[in-house]
């Protein structure tokens, strides 16, 4: 009898373990709430970038030339503080380092503005010690867990890797064939991912690699014009399909995991989204640019 019971338990464990683990891995995209405005009820306008942790969310409210910083409790924003400095004219990407400093890419100046945790201007983060001259146009940037800075330089066709002080460490050239890279992501393990908007293709350079290679084919049928890419704590890749109004999920081997959400104006739909961020709690925040809002999913 006990043998039968043990076998039964084993069978149950074998059948349910993969389901359980898969359920934990992928965000279900159940909508929690939507952020439409700051505490003073000033509406968001064309938000293009964001960064998040379990405790905070910072939004580049591009159309209003400002940042909004929210404290988070269980995925729910509690109060928003506005950050507006004259040096920031067109914030399009934002990242917060481990010291709480805010780094913002200004789309007009194409320079990274450095702000202290209180949102005061410290200076510009211009790459130092570049071996091949200052020919650089920043399209996007990301930080890794050690605060190293990864810059997508579309002018010289490379990803620049800088230390937290902005000093040059190394660079990886873009691959031979590509369309146009709009964003990059850094995986927890150190691998770098690029999203090619024109070719609808994901490229990667695993940790220690000196070159990028495609991990997906040209998947125009599942991504129209992707512009954002992020990797969650478990290594899943989320691509924001701007023109398709959806989120496309891949594993790091390039296998397609699904397409979530759809284009529209109602709650739960996206209209020309640009960026996405996933925190360690598995909450996903999307810069839903043309809907002027930040929907939060779990």
């Amino acid at each position, binding site marked *: 009898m006990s043998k039968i019971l043990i076998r039964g338990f084993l069978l149950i464990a074998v059948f349910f373990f993969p389901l359980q683990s898969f359920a934990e891995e992928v965000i279900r995209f159940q909508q929690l709430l939507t952020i439409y405005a700051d505490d003073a009820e000033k509406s968001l306008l064309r938000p293009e970038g964001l960064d998040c942790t379990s405790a905070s969310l910072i939004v580049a409210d591009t159309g209003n030339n400002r940042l909004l910083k929210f404290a988070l409790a269980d995925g729910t924003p509690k109060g928003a503080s506005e950050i507006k400095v004259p040096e920031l004219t067109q914030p399009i990407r934002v990242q917060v380092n481990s010291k709480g400093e805010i780094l913002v890419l200004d789309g007009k100046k*194409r320079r990274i503005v450095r702000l202290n945790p209180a949102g005061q201007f410290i200076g510009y983060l211009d790459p130092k010690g570049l071996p091949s001259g200052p020919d650089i146009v920043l399209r996007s940037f990301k930080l890794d867990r050690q605060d190293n800075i990864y810059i997508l330089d579309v002018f010289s066709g490379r990803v620049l890797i800088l230390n937290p002080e902005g000093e040059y460490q190394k660079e990886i050239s873009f691959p031979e064939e590509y369309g146009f890279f709009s964003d990059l992501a850094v995986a927890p393990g150190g691998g770098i991912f690029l999203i090619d908007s024109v070719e609808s293709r994901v490229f990667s350079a695993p940790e220690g690699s000196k070159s990028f290679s495609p991990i997906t084919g040209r998947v125009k049928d599942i991504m129209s014009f992707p512009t954002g890419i992020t990797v969650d704590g478990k290594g899943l890749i989320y691509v924001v399909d701007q023109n398709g109004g959806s989120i496309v999920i891949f594993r790091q081997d390039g296998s397609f995991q699904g397409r979530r959400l759809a284009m529209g104006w109602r709650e739960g739909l996206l209209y020309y989204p640009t960026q996405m961020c996933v925190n360690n709690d598995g909450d996903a925040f999307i810069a839903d640019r043309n809907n002027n*809002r930040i929907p939060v999913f779990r």
Partner: protein
Amino acid sequence: MRCRTRLFPAILIVSVLLAFSSAESADKFKLKPDARGKNCLNCHVMFKDKLNNPYIHTPVKTGDCTGCHNPHTAAHEKFLSAGIKDICLKCHTKLLPEKAVSTHKPVAEGECMKCHDPHSEKNKFNLKKPGNALCFECHKEMGDLVSKVKFKHSPVEKGCTNCHSPHASTASVKQLKDQVPGLCLKCHDAKKAVFQNMHMGYPVAGSQCTSCHNPHGSDQRGLLYNRVHSPFAKKMCKECHSQPSSPEPLKLQKTGFELCQKCHSPKINEFFSKNRVHWALLDKKGCLNCHNPHASNQEGLLKKPMMIICGQCHTDTVEKIKKAESKHPPVQEGNCTACHSPHSSDQLSLLGEASVIDVCGQCHDWKQHSMHPIGPKFTDKRNRNLTVTCLSCHRPHGTEYKRMMFFPNSTDTCTDCHEQLKR
């Protein structure tokens, strides 16, 4: 003499094969030995005149009408025993190469008779018209260009088939017999002093000749495209390229927009003063993503027509445009800049105006459009952060529905916002 002895067996084999094939089709209908062709001509009297033409299709000449036609019944018009393409390819087996890079549209569609008369003609290969006149029946614009241009390219005048294969090409696009520049270099010797002088000593033998020269003729000397970039016309190559004697003579002096900034500084500064710059302008190719720095037929020295240029990156948009049920005229005409500023703008999607309503208002008198309120005072019921604009209901690049609407009918369109009216 040796040649003749080789030719004789070949002729013999071809004759036997022809006789055999016509005999085979005749046998199918158990025709009397002297009935082939003659029987048909008993009724098709007018056809006798056809036989007086100098060029007669072989089966017609041998009286093998049943090689192509079924005298009793047929599933194809003119009592043809199969589709035209299949009938022709039965004998002309090498006409469509397996690995064709490009195929002439009428050939691919089996429209052989657009060019050839299947029975007889006054022209070689039974062509319906002699020489280029036949090609210009369809390629009218090319005919106009070739007849009007000041400077003509002699191979074009002698015949399109000097460069193009009329059926298909395994070598190149546009049915060219070889790839450019190889095709051009067959006549133009790059080693000759005159060639080198004209190209200022730059090693252009490996370059794409047709990026500067119009092979069909031009009003510009040297068959350059009609719009020529001023420094190029003045042979100021060194303004952009290295010295012709340097190790990399064709290397550009600067990368991306920086190359053009030297002369077009005010323009580029103006672009960069806007909040949003077209990212294509900022990559390593910069202006050259869209513009030809030497010469072009397009306004603004665009490399190709605007829709093709924009569509190189925005393929998804162009695909949607192609599938759209209702066509928006500026989109249909490929006039992307009617609404978008291609270099930079302060507005989203590089629109030319701050308000979408104002963009549409350049052509449409939206106040006369309908009684539906639009504008900044009216909130979109689906999203409190949006106001009602033209784009609340229409997609300017088109949709699968009429009038560029997002929904198949008015009811669905209206009730998307006015939910309470849903029945």
